[in-house]
């Protein structure tokens, strides 16, 4: 079953606007990661946030994590046409022993289109 579910499925904005994507998940996690995928290419890691962190920044990216609501958001500020891509959240779930399964489970992704 899918651990992470992104919302919205698609987002269309103008250059300069902010883009916010949300991710919900079902079980306890060690960390949550966001990835970007340009059309027809592999995924590229953007940012990792641990379960004991609430917010993290990297350049124009801001990620929040609310473990009580089992949700995360990715904010891209001052978007550019080059930000057009699919964005995926991925979770590292906690196993029965309280550690990691050693693998990530991905959501279905949000397709972001930034118009010049």
């Amino acid at each position, binding site marked *: 079953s*899918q651990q992470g579910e992104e919302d919205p499925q698609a987002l269309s904005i103008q250059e300069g606007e902010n883009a916010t994507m949300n991710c919900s998940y079902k079980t306890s996690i*060690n*960390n949550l*990661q966001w*990835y970007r995928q340009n059309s*027809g*290419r*592999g*995924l*590229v*890691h953007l940012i*990792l946030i*641990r379960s004991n962190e609430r917010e993290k920044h990297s350049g124009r990216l801001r990620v929040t994590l609310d473990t009580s609501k089992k949700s995360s958001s990715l904010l891209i500020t001052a978007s550019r046409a080059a930000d057009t891509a699919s964005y*995926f959240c*991925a979770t*590292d779930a906690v196993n029965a022993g309280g*550690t*990691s*399964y*050693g*693998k*990530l*489970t*991905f*959501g*279905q*992704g949000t397709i972001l289109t930034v118009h010049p």
Partner: protein
Amino acid sequence: DVKVTQSSRYLVKRTGEKVFLECVQDMDHENMFWYRQDPGLGLRLIYFSYDVKMKEKGDIPEGYSVSREKKERFSLILESASTNQTSMYLCASSLLFGLPAGELFFGEGSRLTVL
């Protein structure tokens, strides 16, 4: 920079053929993964490996097998390709096993079409 190389970007095979998808990483990573990506379904884990000759089933292993004879190489095998295996296949690697899952480094993907 970590590089994950998938041997073929595009393949076209016929139903029943045996298909090999090869993946090589050059950063001495312990973990390697095979995902398939389909529209509306996101990425789904097929198999992963945390050491040479070790493998673990992912969420959708049926119809696939894997081989890891060397640390840097992880192969996905479709013993008898079927049309429902038409998909984008993505290989990834990560540094360490036994810790919370770290950053994955992905290859460019192999788009397989089974006729």
